[in-house]
C-alpha cells in the first residue's frame, strides 16, 4: 500500500500540472471574484475618551472589529482631527464608555453605514449590561453571545450593500468556499482516474498479479487522491486566511475535520463515477458535467438560498457540495461541533455509500 501511494507521489512529481493548475485556478477565481483581500473593508480611525482605561479600549475595539466589513484602527485625537480637517480621511470616531461621536468633514456614503453599525454594537452592549445588573448573573453575557452565534433562525440584515446573513459570513467567504470545493472535485476525480488509466495500460493487472492485496491497491490510490484533494483545499484556505485576512472560523481542528469529511465524500463519489464508466474517455466527458452541476446545485456558485426550484433543492440533498458549503459556512460563523455534526455525518454517509457501490461496480466489471 505504501509502495502504491509513494508511486503515485512520484508520478505527481513528474507531472504536477493538474494539481498546480487546479490550485492556481481556484486562487485566481477567489482572488478576482472575492475582491482583493482587505481592500474592500471600510477603515475607521478611532480615538478614545480619557475616561476609558486600556482594557476597556481593547475590549471595545475587539467588539467593533468583529464585523468583516469595517476595520477599526486606533489613533489619537490630534491625528484624527488633523486628518479629518485636511480631508485625508472622510471621518473618524470618538469612543466613550456608553456613547460615541462621529467626526465628519465631508459627506461620505460609508459614514451612515458605520454609524448604524456602531450604534448597534453600543446598543447591544448596553442591553447586556442592563440585563446583567438586573439579574445579577455574570455569565449571562456568555450565554447570550453563544445563543446569538448559533441563532436557530438566520438573522438577515439589509444594508445598502445588499443582504448578508447573520454574523461574519460574507460574499467573499462564499466565493472562497465555493470555488475551492468546486475545483477540488476536479483534482480529486482526475487523480482517481489514474485507476482507470492503470487498468487500460495494464499496470493495474501487473500489481494484481503481485503479492499486493487488492484491498491495499485500492487504499493506496484512495489515500493518494484524498491527500491531493485535502492538501489543495487546505493550501487555498491557508493562503486566503493568512495572506488576505479572510475569516474562516477560529477552530482549525474542526476546519480540518470538515475538509477531511468533504474530501472523503468526493473521493468516494469519484469511485462511483469510475465504476459507472467504461473507459477513460467517458470519465473525462462526464467529470465536467457532474462537477459543474454539483457545484451549481450544491450552492458553490451562488448561495443555496437562491435556489427555489423544488427538484433542484431535492437534488441538492444528495450532493456533497451542499453539505461541504453548509459546514464551512457554519465554521466561519464559529458554530460548535454539535451544529456541524449533521452535515459532516451526511458527508460520511454519502462517502461510504458511493464507495461501496463504486468499488462493487468496478469489481464486477473486471
Amino acid at each position, binding site marked *: 500500500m505504501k509502495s502504491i501511494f509513494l508511486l503515485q507521489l*512520484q508520478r505527481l512529481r513528474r507531472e504536477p500540472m493538474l494539481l498546480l493548475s487546479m490550485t492556481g485556478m481556484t486562487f485566481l477565481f477567489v482572488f478576482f471574484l472575492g475582491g482583493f483581500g482587505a481592500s474592500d473593508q471600510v477603515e475607521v480611525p478611532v480615538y478614545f475618551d480619557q475616561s476609558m482605561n486600556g482594557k476597556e479600549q481593547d475590549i471595545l475595539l475587539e467588539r467593533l472589529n468583529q464585523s468583516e466589513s469595517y476595520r477599526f484602527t486606533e489613533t489619537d485625537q490630534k491625528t484624527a482631527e488633523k486628518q479629518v480637517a485636511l480631508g485625508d480621511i472622510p471621518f473618524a470616531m470618538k469612543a466613550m464608555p456608553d456613547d460615541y461621536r462621529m467626526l465628519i468633514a465631508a459627506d461620505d456614503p460609508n459614514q451612515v453605514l458605520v454609524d448604524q453599525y456602531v450604534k448597534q454594537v453600543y446598543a447591544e452592549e448596553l442591553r447586556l449590561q442592563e440585563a446583567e445588573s438586573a439579574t445579577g448573573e455574570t455569565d449571562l453575557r456568555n450565554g447570550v453571545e453563544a445563543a446569538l452565534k448559533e441563532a436557530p433562525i438566520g438573522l438577515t440584515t439589509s444594508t445598502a450593500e445588499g443582504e448578508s446573513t447573520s454574523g461574519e459570513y460574507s460574499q467573499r467567504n462564499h466565493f472562497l468556499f465555493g470555488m475551492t470545493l468546486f475545483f477540488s472535485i476536479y483534482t480529486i476525480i482526475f487523480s482517481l482516474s489514474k485507476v482507470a488509466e492503470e487498468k487500460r*495500460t495494464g499496470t493495474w493487472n501487473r500489481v494484481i498479479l503481485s503479492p499486493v492485496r487488492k484491498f491495499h491497491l485500492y487504499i493506496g490510490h484512495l489515500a493518494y487522491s484524498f491527500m491531493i484533494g485535502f492538501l489543495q483545499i487546505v493550501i487555498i484556505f491557508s493562503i486566503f486566511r493568512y495572506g488576505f485576512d479572510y475569516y474562516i472560523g477560529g477552530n482549525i481542528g474542526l476546519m480540518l475535520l470538515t475538509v477531511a469529511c468533504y474530501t472523503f465524500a468526493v473521493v468516494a463519489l469519484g469511485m462511483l463515477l469510475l465504476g459507472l464508466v467504461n473507459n477513460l474517455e467517458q470519465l473525462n466527458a462526464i467529470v465536467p458535467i457532474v462537477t459543474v452541476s454539483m457545484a451549481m446545485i450544491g450552492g458553490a456558485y451562488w448561495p443555496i438560498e437562491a435556489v427555489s426550484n423544488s427538484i433542484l433543492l431535492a437534488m441538492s440533498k444528495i450532493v456533497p457540495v451542499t453539505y461541504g458549503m453548509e459546514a464551512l459556512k457554519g465554521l466561519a460563523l464559529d458554530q460548535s461541533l454539535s451544529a456541524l455534526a449533521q452535515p459532516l455525518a451526511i458527508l460520511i454517509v454519502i462517502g461510504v455509500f458511493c464507495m461501496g457501490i463504486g468499488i462493487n461496480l468496478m469489481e464486477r466489471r473486471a
Partner: protein
Amino acid sequence: MLKGESAVLETTNLKKAFKKNVAVSDVNLYLDKGESVGLLGPNGAGKSTAISMISSLVKPSAGDVTWHGKSVVKDPNVIRMHLGVVPQDIALYKELTAVENLRFFGRIYGLRGKELESRMANVLEIVGLTERKNELVKHYSGGMQRRVNIAVALLHEPEIIIMDEPTVGIDPQSRNYILEMVQKLNEEQGMTVLYTSHYMEEVERLCDRIYIMDHGKVIASGTKQELTGILSSEETIWLELDRSYPGLVAELNDMEEILRVIETDKGIKLITPKNSRLLGSIFQAAERQQAQIISLNVQVPTLEDVFLHLTGRKLRD
C-alpha cells in the same frame, strides 16, 4: 515418461464467454518444466483471453487451470509468485524511468535493498538497457519499451514466463533481440516459456511445441514436424500473377484434383495432393485465360499452410 506426465501447468476444458461471445472454449494444453510452448493464432483467436485465465487474472466460465496440480482458479496465489507475465500492451508508467518502474514492481514483490538493486541490474543486462536505464520510458523507442515490459516480468525470477505477443509493432532488430533473449532464458536458464504470437516464424523458431488456436479453440497441436506432417500428403503451388484473373480462378476451382484455391492480392495459392503432376494443366489454363505468370513455386508446407489447410484463412489478415 509420457507427454504431459510431468506438466507444471495444465488447463482442462478451459472456457470463457463474454455474455454471448465465446472467446475461448475447450482449451486443453500443458507445459512441461523447461519447455518452450507456442500459442499461435490470428487476432481475436482468444490467445490473450486464454493467457489471462492461465495467469489467474480472469476467472474461467468453465474448466480449470492447475499449477503443479493445484487449482489456480480456486487459489490464484498458488501460481502468482512463480509467474512472470509480459502483457500484450506496454504496461509501464511511461512518465517514469526504466529504473523507477523496475524499483516499484520489485518492491511490490517484496524485494528490498541490495537484492532489489542486483536483480534490477541483472534484468537490465538481460534486456540490454543498462546504459539507458535512467531515461523516461516515454522517450524510449517501441522496441526498448517492449524490452522494459519484459524486464519487469523477470524481476522476481519466475519459474514460468508467459509472453503475449511481445514483439508486436517493433523494428526487426529489436524483434530479433527479443527472440534471442527468450531463447537464452529458455535454453540457458531452463525457464518454462509460454509464447503467444500471430507470427508463425517466431513460434517456429522458439518453441518446442505449438498449439494453433482459432475462434477460441485449439485446432491443432504438436511439434513443428507433427503439425506440418498434417500436410505431408499435400503441397502448395504458389502462382504469382501480374493482376487478378477471375476466369482463371474459376477454371482452377473446377479442376477435380486441386483441393483448394485461394486468391491473394499477388496471385493464386493452390493446395494439391503431393506429386499430382498438375503443373501442365495449370499452365494450359493460364494460357487459355491469357494470364501473365510472373513466377511459380512449389512449396513444402509451413505452419502458415497448416493454418490455411485447417481454416481456409490466412494467419495474418
